[in-house]
């Protein structure tokens, strides 16, 4: 194999791996939010959460579908979602944390939705036309998600003593998982150099400014603790992902090829 062919193969594999990561983030979070369906605080919010879950799962389908096309080996989007094991998933850890109480879910959504807003804006400037198309569709959904998350964060943070307490507890619990959102690795660096991937380090300042402004308005605080948990992009997960995958993949694996 010549040097140039080697490079071509590698950069294609890089792109597939990158696209699968983005699909992993979406499918894991989408599944988490879907756990609220029928458990929401009241009917309207239950449906609203279901809509958000479907937005994320639909986004995962677009990323996995693109990865399947790039692979060109007969794989489908379902192979990526249902036939890979925990260590093969490369989602950021924040997405796999349990849904917790409603304040916990809203806090995670606020942080992730705002992150996605900047991420998708940047991705829509990619040199890869398929990623641009996905980003342009998804950013509209995310704009609405941000609106929801922000108004709930303000309502709960500025609500009763109990709702404020729960919001602050959630922030203190989740904050340490936000750091890896802004750290790229060598794979992403190669794709950033090629103009394809988003340099997530660039998103930190605008994201932090948004979060600080909302927390201040809601009477909430960014924790002083500096602990951080990392590893999602390497496939090192918390104990929660395995449980999520057993639920998510159970039917597909028990009844291979089943259709409905």
């Amino acid at each position: 194999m010549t040097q140039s062919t080697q490079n071509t193969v590698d950069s294609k594999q890089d792109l597939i791996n990158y696209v699968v990561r983005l699909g992993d983030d979406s499918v894991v979070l989408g599944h988490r939010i879907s756990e609220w369906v029928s458990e929401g605080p009241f009917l309207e919010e239950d449906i609203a959460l279901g809509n958000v879950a479907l937005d994320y799962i639909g986004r995962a389908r677009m990323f996995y579908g693109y990865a399947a096309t790039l692979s060109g080996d007969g794989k489908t989007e379902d192979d990526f979602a249902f036939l890979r094991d925990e260590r093969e998933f490369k989602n950021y850890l924040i997405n796999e944390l349990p849904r917790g109480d409603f304040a916990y879910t809203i806090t995670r959504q606020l942080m992730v939705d705002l992150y996605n807003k900047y991420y998708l804006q940047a991705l829509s400037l990619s040199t890869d036309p398929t990623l641009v198309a996905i980003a342009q569709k998804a950013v509209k959904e995310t704009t609405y998600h941000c609106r929801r998350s922000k108004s709930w964060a303000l309502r709960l943070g500025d609500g009763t003593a109990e709702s404020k307490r729960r919001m602050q507890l959630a922030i203190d619990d989740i904050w340490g998982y936000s750091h890896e959102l802004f750290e790229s690795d060598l794979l992403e660096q190669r794709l950033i150099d090629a103009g394809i991937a988003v340099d997530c380090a660039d998103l930190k300042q605008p994201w932090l400014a948004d979060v600080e402004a909302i927390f201040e308005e809601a009477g909430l605080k960014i924790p002083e603790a500096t602990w951080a948990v990392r590893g999602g992009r390497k496939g090192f997960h918390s104990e929660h992902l395995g449980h999520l995958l057993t639920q998510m993949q159970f039917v597909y694996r028990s009844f291979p090829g089943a259709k409905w």
Partner: protein
Amino acid sequence: MTIEKLELFEVFVRPKRGLDHKHVGSLHAEGREQALEYARDVYTRRTEGISIWVVKSQDITASQEDDNESFFDPSDDKPYRHATYYPLPKEITTM
């Protein structure tokens, strides 16, 4: 948050430009803004609309069924209130 503390809103959706807003149902929300968001989530999931109005249900004054006789029956025997009651003059050919 309990459902009792939420307010009831009526939702009106305009299906497309040129058509009127149509009453599609009601929902519970904590305020106008949230009602608008929930109306979007609950009533326009299948692209039913391009514009939404929400109105607090308590702000609607509605006629009562008991009043139907006095409200609506008296117009039954007043056909002269319909344009079709009047013969058209010969000179008018397009109407």
